[in-house]
């Protein structure tokens, strides 16, 4: 077990040095953290700008809205989370294209698995790194300002949104990795991944007359924020989303992502390199 850990550590260090030389990680980190932080701050400010001029203490409905906003603070992070999702749906296929498909194309993968490295190990490490580099700074960039700005009272909602965010990322990584492993070409991976993720986003944001579960599978973050925002506005729902729809949407996205991921691993295990 200790040897296995040592081996994985060596493989992790190898991957970092080979695939992510300075300053790739650093630039990505800075970009995503900045995007997240600016997004959260902007959203807090927008709320302030939006509500203050309208605020008249004699209007009961406004105070009720404020009460609701105190309880459910998703309003402040829905826009940044959705913005980050949009960005990551674009970045992830490109990362998978550069880090995985490119190695198949250039025969580097063949070189690497000539060493005592398992094929599955190397793919898993890469996927883990891509997930950590996309989710990690984004999550930090959301959490830090959110709590610095007073946070919210509903921690559970916040956690559910972050879980939905992670599920989105896993889903998109799985789609991109499957394309990369089947096509083994970086251009197809980039194009195919970007096209598919654009389709997911288009369908989830613009096609309103469809089951909520489908929207949840394609874009868990959007469904989650829409669900909680629906309850934040008294009597005003964007569309009806039931709690079970949200649950099935999240689970469906996660399961689909895991299935695609497992299929990718089977391909990797059996393919000729």
């Amino acid at each position, binding site marked *: 077990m200790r040897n296995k850990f040592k081996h994985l550590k060596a493989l992790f*260090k*190898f991957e970092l040095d080979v695939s992510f030389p300075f300053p790739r990680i650093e630039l990505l980190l800075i970009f995503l953290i900045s995007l997240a932080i600016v997004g959260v701050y902007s959203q807090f400010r927008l709320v302030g700008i939006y509500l203050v001029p309208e605020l008249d203490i004699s209007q009961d409905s406004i105070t009720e809205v404020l009460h609701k906003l105190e309880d459910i603070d998703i309003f402040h992070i829905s826009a940044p989370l959705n913005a980050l999702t949009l960005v990551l749906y674009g970045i992830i296929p490109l990362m998978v294209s550069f880090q995985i498909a490119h190695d198949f194309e250039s025969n580097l993968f063949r070189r690497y698995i000539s*060493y*005592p490295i398992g094929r599955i190990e190397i793919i898993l490490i890469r996927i883990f790194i891509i997930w950590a580099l996309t989710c990690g700074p984004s999550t930090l960039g959301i959490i830090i300002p959110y709590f610095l700005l007073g946070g919210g009272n509903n921690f559970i909602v916040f956690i559910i949104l972050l879980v939905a965010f992670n599920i989105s990322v896993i889903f998109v990584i799985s789609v991109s990795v499957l394309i990369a492993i089947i096509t083994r070409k970086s251009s197809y991976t980039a194009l195919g991944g970007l096209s598919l993720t654009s389709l997911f986003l288009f369908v989830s944001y613009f096609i309103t007359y469809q089951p909520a579960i489908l929207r949840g599978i394609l874009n868990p973050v959007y469904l989650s924020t829409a669900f909680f925002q629906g309850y934040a506005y008294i009597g005003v729902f964007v569309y009806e989303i039931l709690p079970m729809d949200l649950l099935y949407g999240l689970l469906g996205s996660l399961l689909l992502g895991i299935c695609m991921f497992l299929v990718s691993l089977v391909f990797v295990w059996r393919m000729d*390199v």
Partner: protein
Amino acid sequence: MCSEIMVSTHELVKHFNDVTALNGVTMEIPEGIFGLIGPNGAGKTTLFRILIGLISPDSGEAYVCGQSIHDHSLEIRRIMGVLHERPIYPKHLSARTYLQHISDLYDSSGDPEEYLALVGLSEAADRKVKTFSAGMIQRLGLAQALIGHPRLILLDEPTSNLDVLGREAILNLIVELHQKSGTSFLIASHVLSDLEKVCTSVAFLNKGRIVKQGDILDVVWAEVPNEYIIVVSNPTLLQRDLKNEECINNVQISGSRSLVVEIGSEFTEQDLTEIVSAISDRDDIRVYSIERRSSLEGAFRRVVDNEE
């Protein structure tokens, strides 16, 4: 602990769409420096990839140090080093850094400094790989194949892309390493002159089949016992006169200044020398050398021709 036989294969078959790359390859590779000889497309690289575990055979078995490639691919790679044809290494890393990573992957105590010194790259240890010449890349390739203390090293066209001096240096290094550390080498190449210098045993691979295998000297002596290369100022003239000689079985021009001559088995080199001397004096031809062609190339050509 490995047995004397490093690699054994039994009826290995591999197809790629309509192409049969390996067609029932059965062979045993003993310890030492083994040459796998064949023209381009013979199946050498395919065989290597099967042994490394990059591809699976359609049928057949193969064992490396007694371990099956089907069940113990990872363990095999732990005791094996590989130098691929036209190797690529991360350009932004230094040689030292890359070797340290490889040493960690093998979980070996190999010190990059030591292996860089062994392959003559000490002074370039901290240079980035992108600044390396082709010869230096090959040396780095040898170092990374060695650093895991392997029992067997697979070299796929190790001297391609190299000039004469570079090739000689690599070949000398292989011999030296085998003598010092006892590591066995399996070299795939179509440059027979290189293999002739270093190999202890060889196998001929043609169109996916082993057509001959054995100790290099036995193979060569069996196939080409009486061939000689004559370097001469006017090979055309000499060829015309030699054709009339009784002891000469075959004579062919092999270059602008050379002939390959096959004499009958009952004749000796002395006989040939006398005949050539007489002709050269008569026709005023200058003879530079007469050498026995202990040639792997000749042996291979003959074996392949017989097969066809």
